[in-house]
């Protein structure tokens, strides 16, 4: 059960992150000050893909809530970071971000650490 919940969390998180980053880059710079928040909500309401990303986020969240209840916090949180490598690849392939050697190595070290933590 804990692995089913984990796969739901990982897949929904990756989909949500890619959609969020893609849409927020197109929307321009935002902040979370009083006026910034109003603009942020307006942006969310206007962009359909951003709403879809929030649906994905909701799915991943409810699965995470069940996971965090059933499994230890020190497993649930790091294990859910298994989406890292998929997302870094998608960032390069879909979002066309430049993932340099340094940054890729850093992401891989983080991933290796997360894998050890998840045991």
């Amino acid at each position: 059960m804990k692995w089913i919940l984990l796969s739901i969390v990982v897949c929904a998180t990756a989909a949500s992150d890619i959609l969020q980053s893609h849409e927020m880059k197109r929307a321009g710079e935002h902040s979370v000050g009083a006026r910034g928040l109003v603009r942020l909500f307006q942006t969310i309401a206007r962009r359909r893909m951003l709403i879809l990303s929030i649906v994905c986020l909701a799915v991943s969240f409810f699965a995470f809530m069940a996971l965090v209840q059933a499994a230890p916090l020190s497993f649930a949180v790091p294990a859910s970071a298994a989406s890292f490598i998929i997302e870094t690849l998608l960032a390069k392939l879909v979002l066309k971000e430049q993932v340099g050697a340094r940054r890729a190595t850093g992401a891989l070290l983080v991933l290796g650490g997360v894998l050890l933590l998840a045991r």
Partner: protein
Amino acid sequence: MPAHPNRTLRTYSLLLLFIFLRPVGNLALAWGTKHFPQSLSVDPSVYLRAMLDPFVALGIAMLILSVLTRLALLSLADLSFVLPVTAVGYILATLFGQVFLHESVTAQQWLGTVLIFMGTALVGSTAHNTTKYEEASE
């Protein structure tokens, strides 16, 4: 990369806010759900009742705020910068699990923590928005 100083300051302030909100929110959520008598399944009514628990509610409020903070952060910096740097939150969650929830964390798991810190330091020293300044750097 000639990033504007204010932009850099804003990026790092949002990053710090996110790094605080997420693990503390996770801890409150874990505490609340673990002390909730019913098992969370596909039944929405169980979720709704669980959300009335003060710790679950606090956790959710903090996590929602962390999502908004992250949205703002993503408008300033690349996803491949944001993702590994916020991994600090995963380490804090493990620490909180050990300290507050009395979970056993093995030596192997702490080795993983060190690897995460190394990876984070490496990524944190690189440019944090590559798509915006493409023309300027070519």
